[in-house]
């Protein structure tokens, strides 16, 4: 897999990481080396192996619909970087922004 700076920038954007130009320059060859090693799995033939790693549970194992404790809104606001006393506050965004 060729990992270049364009790909690193695209992935960083998906991951919401603002990398500096220097960071991009530094990290691209590292990722290229890492994926150079990782790419050996492309040679492995595992047929149609079911990738599920966990055994299923049954309905009996589920939680019953009994309300539990709620968080004290004051503790939420205490941890919040910005709030108005009731809501968490962020820069204005538009509903279709993602």
């Amino acid at each position: 897999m060729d990992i270049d700076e364009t790909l690193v920038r695209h992935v960083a954007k998906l991951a919401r990481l603002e990398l500096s130009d220097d960071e991009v320059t530094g990290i691209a060859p590292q990722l290229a080396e890492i994926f150079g090693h990782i790419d050996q799995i492309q040679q492995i033939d595992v047929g149609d192996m079911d990738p599920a790693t966990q055994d299923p549970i049954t309905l009996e194992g589920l939680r019953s619909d009994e309300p539990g404790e709620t968080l004290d809104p004051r503790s939420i606001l205490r941890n919040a970087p910005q709030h108005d006393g009731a809501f968490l506050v962020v820069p204005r965004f538009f509903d279709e922004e993602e």
Partner: protein
Amino acid sequence: MFGFDDSLDLPVAEMAQRVRDKDNPLTASKLVETSLLRIETLDAAYGAFLRRTGDLAREQAAAVDAKAEAGEDPGPLAGVPLAVKDNLAVPGVPLTCGSKILGEYIPPTWATSVKRAVDAGACIVGKTNLDEFAMGSSTENSAFGPTRNPHGTAFVPGGSSGGSAAAVASGMAPLALGSDTGGSIRQPAALCGITGMKPTYGRVSRNGLVAFASSLDQVGPMARSCADARALLEAIEGVDPLDATTRGYDTAAQNGVDLGSLRIGRVTEFALDDVPGGEPAQAAVERVRSALFETGATDAELSLPLVQASIPVYYLVAPAEASSNLARYDGVRYGHRAEGGADLMDLYARTREEGFGEEVKRRILIGTFALSAGYADAYYKKAMATRAALRAQFDSAFAECDVIVSATTPTCAFKIGEKADDPLAMYLCDVLTVAANLAGLPAVSVPCGKTAEGLPLGIQVWGPPGRDGLVFDVAEQLEAMDGCGYEAPEVTS
């Protein structure tokens, strides 16, 4: 040891028994004070603790002593000082994960595992250092500085549970909790000369453990002996209604194996013949195997070809899950937020840029890429299918052997800074540990001698899923062998 009161150096069961016995002068408060004093005296050299929780420990100790005084049973860990890796939540105590991004975050609730240890009588003396979000093999990736190996402060203690390993190895606390995603308990245990155990996936609740890679993470005990580690595991294990991946394992069924006629698996792919500096570890493996054969055990030679793929599989699956698990650190609800974000995208990107360290960003990028459109089939899905095939190989292997014995690490501890600029070299350190996480197996590392320069080595015992007790049984045999087991480090000044 160290001229301190030595009650802290007793086996955990004995220590707790004396605390429970109200006619014995040893109290929880005394153990806690001893532990806090040792931390005060020693930790400047090791940097094992990110935060000391003296008030909390004293309060918990007083409660234990009051129970003992009142004739109630304060539990099997009564008064035993416990160091807790700082990716496990303790209500009211800041939780950092070794990261700047959590800011001043204070969790409101307990990690189930920690709460269970406290309910069993343990007293929390502090939160220990770790690689940021448990991503690393040296504890150099902490935003709050590295931890040093008590057997040589120029060396790394291993990671990511390096703080917990150093705390136990140096005698500051007899027990510690760590977490193991790809070896993060066993590898630092080996490099610091203590016992560290990764339980079967699902045996211990992950509730309150800050997620790194959810399908691989497991909380486990670190201690000076198998018996101590087992006591801590027994306190924390069990189904938790707050973690849907916990399963009940029948502890009684573990003892069906005759320890006198064990079939000891040797996995060809774990051989260290070609690894530079791997000779001492390989020699240690041969030594304990020979000793086991003398007790009647037999050799089972196995090949698990997919073990060779375990590093690539691990470095796809773990970062993929991590990239998702770490999306919540966005500066909206808690933790660090960048100043003056112009818009939402800017706020997210700058908050995460400022808050995460280099290794965390690298893994977020690897994982995001591995899951992204156009690449997920070749990377994430391929890795998961390979992982399932690897699990199947282990299932077959455990039909032919009872346990597998291998080294825990290819080499002893390396110098701080030595691999800092070579992430791939760092990743390859995990070659002997990650397969247990990928397959959900229990595995324990016990100390097995030292290298010529005096750095500890560890031997690892692997078992089939759910057979955590068997793994401990075998590890206890190894621990009792000449030159194995815990040795206190020389005090370095």
